[in-house]
């Protein structure tokens, strides 16, 4: 009986203290708890740099960058299954508009994406959720050249993709190296390219950017003779 009299106020006090502590904790660490951040992912996103001035967030922004760093389910951005950028040739930055990128998953389910004037293509996860591994091919129809002739190039990726939806995670916006296959491209460097930068495009490189001059000029670049002719993505 005596114990009851003495402990009841203590219980109430403890409950009050507990409630106050939890409230303070929630206030103090509220932002961190709500955001549920990943430092690794944040570092990857930060490594991409700022948006290019004058290019709004949307389908034309950040050409050549790994789309799924932001669009892979982390953060509020729309979620994609695949996304990337198609360029004219491996050694330049001229984006290709109208390239058809077809993904076929291990169950045979296909999805074809078409690149825009910035070379960007993507598919929302709601529209296509592949079962890996997947096979990818790129079909490009070149603009008519000086002789009025256009060509169709069909490039099949040399390996299967096993998990990565960001094409640029491997296909960085640079020539092939020991670390990666370089850009996704339409025309082997042995052949001339009639692709040009679209000056009216909201995104993509601008005329006069590094690498664009040679591309628009469509000359055969050096070192091309040693190329394998395996076609498209190395």
């Amino acid at each position, binding site marked *: 009986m005596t*114990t009851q009299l003495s402990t009841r106020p203590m219980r109430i006090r403890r409950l009050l203290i507990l409630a106050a502590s939890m409230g303070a904790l929630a206030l103090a660490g509220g932002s961190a708890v709500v955001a549920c951040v990943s430092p690794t992912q944040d570092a990857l996103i930060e490594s991409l740099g700022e948006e290019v001035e004058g290019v709004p967030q949307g389908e034309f922004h950040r050409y050549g960058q790994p789309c799924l760093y932001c669009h892979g389910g982390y953060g509020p951005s729309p979620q994609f299954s695949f996304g990337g950028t198609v360029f004219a040739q491996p050694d330049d930055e001229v984006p290709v508009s109208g390239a058809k990128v077809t993904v076929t998953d291990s169950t045979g389910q296909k999805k074809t994406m078409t690149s825009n004037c910035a070379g960007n293509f993507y598919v929302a996860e709601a529209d296509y959720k592949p079962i890996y591994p997947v096979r990818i091919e790129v079909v490009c129809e070149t603009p008519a050249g000086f002789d009025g002739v256009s060509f169709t190039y069909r490039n099949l990726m040399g*390996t299967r993709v096993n998990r990565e939806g960001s094409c640029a995670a491997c296909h960085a916006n640079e020539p092939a190296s020991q*670390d990666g296959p*370089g850009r996704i491209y339409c025309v082997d460097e042995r052949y001339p390219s009639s692709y040009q930068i679209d000056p009216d495009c909201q995104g993509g490189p601008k005329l006069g950017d590094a690498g664009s001059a040679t591309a628009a000029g469509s000359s055969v670049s050096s070192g*091309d*003779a*040693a190329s*394998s002719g395996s076609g498209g993505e*190395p």
Partner: protein
Amino acid sequence: MTSTPQVTPPSPSPSRWLACRLALVVLGAAVISSPACLATEELGTTDFSCPSPDGFRVVSQVLERRCGTMDCHGDESRTFRIYGRTGMRLPRTEAEYLAERQSTSAGTSVASVSSSDASASSGGGGDQTSSTGSGEGGASIFDEYVTGGTEATSNAEVEANRLSACGVEPDLISEVVNTEADPGTLTLVRKPRLTEAHKGGLIWKADSLQGDKCLTTWISGLVDVAACNGELKRP
């Protein structure tokens, strides 16, 4: 007689008692684990048995194709990392690469390649290079020593792949080589079979276990080249 309420001193609650015990356990664990750090002079090397390089080139081709894409084990951050023509290349300077290539063509390569490998190399993936000397048009063959380039998987890369495969569980693969354990105990074998969790999923499809046979026969000492070639023909 009036009874005055008496406050009895609170006995330690069970949760507080538990917390104290937990703290003691943590402290004890910290004390025990601290001397476990090794000083540099205490570090050393140990020998282990790794399956033979003989006939490994075709096994390497299978690993390059099935495991070595750049979004999986063709990545230097992986413990089990695979190098090859269609994936990550073994980092080399031009001088190193050309010197290795020359020594290979002179038949003094570290990784010996058996005659059976030559016939298997047509299976694709990392087949031995066909070009010799410098490339056409004055371009260096080193320019093609890139991911997806025409320079085939080098012997140094094949050897790196072999050591990587052994390095996953060196003690256990040693036991398997010495017939003290079954190949099926290895993570290297269990992951593609999906008998152990594997982010890449099931690699050897139920309708064709040739890749599994290729890998396990190499580990057991005699590569089943036909099985390896069969796996390489699969899409």
